[in-house]
């Protein structure tokens, strides 16, 4: 019940296209859903996050869509650029578990020029 399932494992998108990465969870007590971006040789960095009281959050070309009833959330990258090539992780946490992040397995995104 603590798992966060992420798909796909890898994704290749043409420059200018839309990249979509999906995550699903079971624990309805989760109350915070972040996405992290990791470039090779670097640590993960917080990209964007959402709480379950909203269905969508947009920051520049990055959007989180959240479906509480389906227990799913996704990251959309509009106008994908080669500089977006990285590994993306979804995660979830809840206050009652010391805010511990439960991580998805990661998606390696490659944007082809």
């Amino acid at each position, binding site marked *: 019940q603590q798992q966060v399932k992420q798909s796909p494992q890898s994704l290749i998108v043409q420059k200018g296209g839309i990249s979509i990465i999906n995550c699903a969870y079971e624990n309805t007590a989760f109350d*915070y859903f*972040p996405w992290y971006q*990791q470039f090779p*040789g*670097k*640590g*993960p*960095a*917080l990209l964007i*996050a959402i709480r379950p009281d909203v269905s969508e959050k947009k920051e520049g070309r990055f959007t989180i869509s959240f479906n509480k009833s389906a227990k799913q959330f996704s990251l959309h990258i509009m106008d994908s650029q080669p500089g977006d090539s990285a*590994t993306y*992780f979804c995660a979830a*946490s809840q*206050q009652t578990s*010391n*805010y*511990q*992040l439960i*991580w998805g*397995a*990661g998606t*390696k995104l490659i944007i082809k020029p």
Partner: protein
Amino acid sequence: DTAVSQTPKYLVTQMGNDKSIKCEQNLGHDTMYWYKQDSKKFLKIMFSYNNKELIINETVPNRFSPKSPDKAHLNLHINSLELGDSAVYFCASSRFGGRAQYFGPGTRLLVL
């Protein structure tokens, strides 16, 4: 100024040795973490300290011992290193309840 720093960046050592990794954060956060990232990029929480108190202790061999001398530092000592310990170890910090975690650059450990 680096927000979360780790030393060393690379660590190559023989099986059976003992090694330490150090982490420091200058963000004023009160919570720090150690993560292990394996070759498949999977991130696994190992430990978390809040105000020098251990609050998360996942199933990790007791050869791994964290130590937090103060809120800004969290070190990881590994005894009797094994081949399977080869991984990238990340330190992170956050404000307790603040949700966003800030990661260091990682320490790449290779056990031969």
